[in-house]
């Protein structure tokens, strides 16, 4: 009987894990926000930023997005996880287009 309970619990655990897996991001209004980078995807020029409000936003760089540090433009490869950033976002529908990303001193 003990094995049965463990077995059922294991299946339930796997099922719940499967159902709850997956990242959930937020949509915020247009504006400038401070936050920390939690994930960088260089291939897709994509970053995840954890804003000071606790919301997580997923940002895809556009052709016009500017990236700078100490007043100078820097390449995307400069970005690292845990970098502090100031991002200016434009909300288009429910999509967030980064207008500018400024890397701040940690």
């Amino acid at each position, binding site marked *: 009987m003990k094995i049965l309970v463990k*077995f059922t619990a294991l299946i339930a655990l796997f099922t719940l894990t499967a*159902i709850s897996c997956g990242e959930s991001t937020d949509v915020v209004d247009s504006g400038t926000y401070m936050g920390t980078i939690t994930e960088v995807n260089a291939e897709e020029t994509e970053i995840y930023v954890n804003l000071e409000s606790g919301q997580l936003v997923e940002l895809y760089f556009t052709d016009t997005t500017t990236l700078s540090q100490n007043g100078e433009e820097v390449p995307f490869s400069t970005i690292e996880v845990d970098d502090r950033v100031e991002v200016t976002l434009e909300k288009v529908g429910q999509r967030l287009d980064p207008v500018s990303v400024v890397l701040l001193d940690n």
Partner: protein
Amino acid sequence: MSELPSLWRTELWHPMLVHFPIVLLLGAAVLRSLSPFLSEDNARFFNRASRLSLVIGVITAWITVYTGSLADSIVVRELCDPTVLESHENGGYTIAVLFSIAAVLDLGVIKFLPEQKQLLKRITEWAVIGLLLVGSGYVAYTAHLGASLVYQQGAAVYEPTAGCSEFE
């Protein structure tokens, strides 16, 4: 004059493949759910058919998840509401994982469990049915989101020019 884009472009591999797991996984769920109400012979046939559908369905589901991630990176910048894509992606993973667990239980546990473990076998069979039914609900929900992406947001859809010159 603009050129008509290829039907073999990367973002279209996903819609080409996605209908295989939809049919196979839902088919597996229907067949397996009916089997407890059938005679032993018919139930055996339904279970075998369900198992085959499930295995091929799981393989095609993971291929579909992969092609979906390829399409994701191409279409996400064009969408007005990428949160729908995110939910669709999460739904796809959930489907693949739920049906994979069902397949492992079905093939590994039920098939190789000793005959004397009848109670455990029976519970596992019902767990498989439960997983297939929950997974089917996710298939319906995720398919609905996929349709929303295409028909409401035009994901991966080419918009012909006003004069249709590319078709001349």
